[in-house]
């Protein structure tokens, strides 16, 4: 999901959700979010340093009260080990974008210069367009997108935010007792 130009980026209510790495966990989380009517800005999921454990970053587009509700509902899912709200902590939030920008010969150098200002990489050049890759905060990516818009954005892909608290504390180390499922191999079981 993305913003219209000029629209303010929502106060980032960033949730980090640790889940079992099992088929269907994403469906459960998505189903919950849809059913309870929580607006999300982005949801990303990937593996973690620990086998069997996935980590989601969910950016929620709601007021603090709704976000608290979302956290409590997520905590009720059997597949969810822990939910951490990063909003009130120092954190790093990163988003990655791939942008295909139209580059008529007259503006090509201007586009490339702008990309440099954003420390974006040019990863592909075609006759009449370039593909730019950029990683950064949500605001930085939004600014890059806004600055490229006048040239003509032909295609855009964003990953959504991945977030982490600053400092040394990590959730999984702080809570070593979080049980993973027992019994036989998990992959065949559980939707």
């Amino acid at each position: 999901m993305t913003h219209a130009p000029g629209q303010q980026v929502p106060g980032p209510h960033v949730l980090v959700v640790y889940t079992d790495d099992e088929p269907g966990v994403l469906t459960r989380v998505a189903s919950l979010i849809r059913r309870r009517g929580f607006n999300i800005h982005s949801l990303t999921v990937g593996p973690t340093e620990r086998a069997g454990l996935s980590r989601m970053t969910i950016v929620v587009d709601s007021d603090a009260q709704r976000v608290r509700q979302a956290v409590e509902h997520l905590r009720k899912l059997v597949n969810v080990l822990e939910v951490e709200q990063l909003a009130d902590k120092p954190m790093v939030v990163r988003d990655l974008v791939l942008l295909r920008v139209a580059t008529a010969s007259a503006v090509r150098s201007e586009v490339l210069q702008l990309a440099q200002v954003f420390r974006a990489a040019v990863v592909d050049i075609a006759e009449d367009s370039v593909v730019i890759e950029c990683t950064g905060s949500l605001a930085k990516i939004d600014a890059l997108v806004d600055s490229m818009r006048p040239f003509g954005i032909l295609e855009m892909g964003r990953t959504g935010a991945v977030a982490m608290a600053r400092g040394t504390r990590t959730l999984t180390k702080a809570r070593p007792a979080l049980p993973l499922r027992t019994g036989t191999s998990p992959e065949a079981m559980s939707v």
Partner: protein
Amino acid sequence: MSESGSYTGAQLIWESLLREGVDTVFGYPGGAILPAYDAMVSYPIRHVLVRHEQSACHMADGYARASGRVGVVVATSGPGATNLVTGLATAMLDSTPLVAITGQVGSALLGTDAFQEVDITGITIPVTKHNYLVTRAEDIVPAIREAFAVARSGRPGPVLVDITKDAQQSRAALDWEAATPQRHRRHLPAPLDPEALAQALDLIRQAKRPIILAGHGIQLSGARAEVLALAERADIPFALTLLGLGAVPATHPLSLGMMGMHGESWVNRAIQEADLLIALGMRFDDRVTGKLKEYAPHAKKIHIDIDASELNKNVPVDVAIAADLGDVLRTLLPQLPVADRSGWLETIREWRGDSAVRDIKNLPDDGHLYAAHVMHDLWRLTKGEAVVVTDVGQHQMWEAQYYKHDGERSLITSGGAGTMGFALPAAIGAKVARPDAEVWVVAGDGGFQMTFAELMTAVQEGVKVNIAVINNGYLGMVRQWQAMFYEGRYAATPILSPDFVKLAEAFGVQGQRVECRGDLAAAVAKARAFEGAALIEFKVEQEDSVYPMVPAGAALHEMIRRPSALAETGSDPV
């Protein structure tokens, strides 16, 4: 303990259920669950064959609510499984611990739209606490063990285990200990917060006009004694939610009665005038609060519930405690000072006096049969000791108003979901769970026609339930709303019924009809004396309405009162 030898997946299902203490299941066989049924006959399990899978869920639900044990349902794949959905949703909304086991097509056929293949785990995500798709025999025991743990723990609810046919047919070892569930412990409540407890104590000490709101969580927590101790020690009256009826005794001097949309006027008035609400194991449902903005405007609020997501959901509270109610009260009680709040109680008593003259049970029957009279007389004749299982609608509210439930687990009703057709199957389940209890079905003519095929189940299984069908010839609650809010246009609410007496007799059930109050006692006595299931059709006043009523969206004190015996005004707000 690790048992050697190998079992089929089908055997592992029953081995697991037996170890979980199951002796009864409610179900319906079919192709994909056939291996499990084939294995079942070698195990000491009572199988109750239903006439529709939805009823199997309601029976297991009634069984669980009557006994506190986990109810178990078995069904086949496809339509067998989808027929469970309404029953699962009913159990989910009323926090009933239930495990449903469904057969599924062979794992090689998953995702191919094979015959009777339906993605039941996908379908039931929102109406279960959790569900499993099991495709290998060795995963059956861990899945079932965890399913029971999840169903029972925290706020209870239904869990579905979908097992492919090949998983039932292949073999695996049984290692019960290795399958010890862990994950349900992830979300157990945190230790009690002493600061929140201290705040709660302060609020209770300072309150002049406190009220306890008693909900279903009291029964689920087994906290009846603690709640009564709180009420008596601090001299605080309690109002009950629909599912809270029976959690604490209706005839207790501090009991006010049911709150909410069809609560008595003095109860809702007391809530609106209170300076402290102590909400115990309830969730501020819209049927309880009316218009949220004007709900209990003068009251501080303490909310104790095991489900943290219910706290501050509908009503913002001053003290929110997510924990087992019994644990909290056992910690609070020793620090709670004895208090005397006779002034507040006297005020409520005065409000109450005005309602007695309007009370329909005190009105003459003048030749008519009123449903309220039926409920009142049933209560009197059964000495308030029956387990009553109600359907959904007007009769459900009249039952809640006029049958005084003292005993725990003595009222079983679909509160959250409002599922019509619930009563008869749930009553069969309740009677199977508690064969020594006197079980009454109270159903309307509409809801009863949804699931009356289960009469045959009652006969086949020799289940003695007594059935009161309150027949007013309408889908009465909807008709009431049409009369009050849709200018009397009775769209699709007049409903014909079969001859219920002949119908009962066709099933081998005793059938009687009562049309005036004078015949009621004899008919009830005859039904109770009959060894098998017995049905009484009560032909009641057709266009009677349930009062008092808080119209949907109105504030709790804006009630439509009962027409007074003296002045027959239709609307008489407090």
